[in-house]
């Protein structure tokens, strides 16, 4: 049973160019000087977007910035009217768009909860019964009677989510708001999202964190410049979105020297296989190394190298610090080279980027993001049914060890 059906949704923004058009005088001048009607530029934020979401499904929407994701959510939430097409939504819609959206700044937190509940068509008694749950989930007990405009953005986001999570609309539209708040809150939010999903809520979820999408959505849609590029199973759509190809040239990088007074700097970095051959294509089953060469210009205490490994340009998988080992300590002037081993059966298939930093505690000398890139494939094995298959949720390859504790076979009746 579909909860959302969208047909050919389009949204055009007419951007005026030339003479300012936000005064009547200006508008008249434009009208008089309308040579070649070049007064407006049409920007299609959405173009013929069609999709269907079933009841109880979590549907992800991914795409680059400017692909129309936020516009689509605003249209679905009824805040912005489409230029063409239409959509049907069964049930009440709760929307979590930017932080604080849907909340009136001059009302207090408590009033805003009632306000939102009323927008959802709920009666005051029901809202009152849920108020306590909402406030304690959002952790804003002390501030529930202060005006919303005085809330920090974290509090705003938490209250927003709490309202959506406990006032239980049938359809929930979420735009990346879950990334606000501390770790504990994010965890609470994801848990609550799962509970909501189980209770049959339909969720439209936009995020840049592809691992969240993979972890919570069954199906997803890829938007590209306002058009639907692909709709399908979440994992496959993420595949399509991830920028492909890591060129071999990104296996090695050299750095130009910085200012002379910089106490230490990176000279070069490389990714290489177990035999020391510079390459950046590895198999899941293969271990490889990251080699760093750096120069120290003044004697330093506590010099530290750190590598951050990122998958899909967004999510951090692992960091390797030299203070894991005993290299921390005094460095004299000189040129040094170190390498760290990345074990096999650790990182999943995918494209990775490395960020490298160099410094002493609290002072960073060098910071290079996307300095190196490498990719991992699974040619040597069949990962079709493995939990660490590409496109499945999860960051690392770790089948875990299963132990049989107890099993007993019971007699079962088979009906004829």
């Amino acid at each position: 049973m579909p909860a959302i059906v969208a047909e050919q949704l389009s949204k055009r923004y007419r951007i005026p160019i030339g003479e300012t058009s936000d005064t009547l005088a200006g508008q008249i001048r434009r009208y008089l000087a309308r040579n070649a009607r070049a007064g407006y530029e049409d920007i299609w934020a959405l173009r013929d977007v069609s999709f269907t979401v079933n009841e109880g499904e979590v549907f992800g929407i991914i795409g680059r910035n400017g692909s129309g994701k936020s516009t689509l959510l605003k249209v679905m939430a009824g805040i912005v009217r489409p230029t063409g097409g239409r959509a049907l939504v069964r049930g009440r819609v709760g929307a979590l768009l930017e932080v604080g959206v849907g909340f009136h700044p001059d009302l207090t937190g408590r009033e805003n909860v009632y306000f939102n509940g009323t927008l959802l068509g709920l009666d005051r008694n029901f809202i009152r019964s849920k108020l306590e749950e909402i406030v304690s989930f959002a952790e804003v007990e002390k501030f529930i009677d202060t005006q919303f405009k005085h809330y920090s953005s974290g509090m705003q986001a938490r209250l927003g989510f709490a309202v959506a999570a406990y006032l239980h609309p049938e359809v929930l539209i979420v735009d990346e708001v879950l990334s606000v708040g501390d770790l504990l809150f994010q965890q609470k939010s994801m848990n609550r999202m799962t509970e909501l999903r189980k209770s049959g809520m339909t969720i439209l979820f936009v995020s840049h964190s592809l691992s969240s999408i993979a972890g919570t959505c069954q199906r997803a849609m890829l938007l590209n410049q306002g058009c639907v590029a692909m709709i399908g199973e979440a994992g496959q759509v993420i595949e399509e979105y991830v920028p492909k190809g890591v060129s071999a040239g990104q296996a090695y990088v050299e750095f130009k020297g910085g200012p002379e007074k910089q106490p230490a700097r990176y000279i070069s970095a490389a990714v290489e296989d177990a035999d020391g051959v510079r390459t950046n294509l590895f198999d899941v089953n293969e271990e490889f190394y990251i080699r760093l060469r750096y120069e120290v210009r003044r004697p330093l205490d506590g010099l530290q190298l750190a590598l951050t490994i990122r998958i899909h340009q967004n999510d951090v998988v692992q960091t390797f610090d030299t203070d894991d080992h005993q290299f921390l300590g005094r460095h004299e002037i000189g040129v040094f080279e170190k390498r760290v081993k990345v074990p096999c059966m650790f990182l999943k298939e995918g494209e990775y980027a490395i960020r490298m930093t160099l410094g002493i505690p609290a002072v960073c000398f060098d910071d290079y993001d996307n300095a190196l890139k490498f990719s991992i494939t699974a040619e040597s094995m069949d990962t079709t049914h493995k939990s660490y298959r590409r496109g499945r949720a999860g960051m690392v390859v770790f089948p875990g060890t299963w132990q049989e504790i107890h099993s007993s076979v019971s007699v079962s009746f088979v009906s004829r």
Partner: protein
Amino acid sequence: MTSADVKDDPDSDVSVLDLVDLREADVQIRARDRVDHTVHVVAPPQLSDLWQSISSLPRFMPLFRILVWRVIRLRYTQSYLGLIWLALQPITQASIILFLFTLINVHTGDGAHQGLFLFAGATSWGFFARSVGDAQGSLYANAGILTKVYMPKIMLPLASIIAAWLDTVIVIALLVIVSFTFGIPPTFRLLWLPAFLALISLTSLSFGLGLAPINALYRDIGVLIPLVLQVLMVLSPVYYSTRFIPGKYQLIYHLNPMTSLLEGVRWTILPDSPAPNLNFLLVNFLCILTILIVSLLIYQKLESPVVDRI
């Protein structure tokens, strides 16, 4: 055990599930949570939106109350004088004009009571101008929530107009007090005063509703409108009676809806003020309705661009 039974008892406990096949439990849990399956349509703006907005107002009543209350709070509690200012304005204006007219020995009112005549005009016109001013700025002033909250946006100018009704109570009180001050106790005609004030309110809605989106889109309108209102004031019998208008222009003059309404207000207060001509009153009423319809159309057409561009 049907889902309807379960729905009526939202706090019923696990015991219900004991009686029900576990496969059904999922459906029952959903039923407990007051599921609502009304279908909303997301579509480009069309004329029927007006009807949609207005018919969905009851659902948004608590929000509407909050918006009205907010306008009232802004108007009356922000300035220290607040309510006193509301009275002070027409009193000051009427006093100045009275002084002027006395100085140049001009009598513009019907009956002997020039002071009350002027005061009635100043108060009524002030009420009208304030309502229009608030309504036309309502969309721009609420730019924040326009782009973030799902609600019938027409509620914003409407809230300004409704908030202005508080004005009417004060206006009536003032007029009664000043009547007594001038030694002219009000008659039963006073009972018609709310009716005329209601019509003035309707007129201000007609103007304000159409102007609101125009003001939000074109920022110079906000400056233009007070000027236009000034001109309109001169063209209305605020400080003079309609008998000063030459006969052949009377009809055109009465195309201005405020003419009969102002005459009406004065008729309710001053015993020797003539009742407004019923024919002209009807013409005025039709004018108000025409302007209202035009305003509604303008509003509907411009509502979506306002949200896009504000």
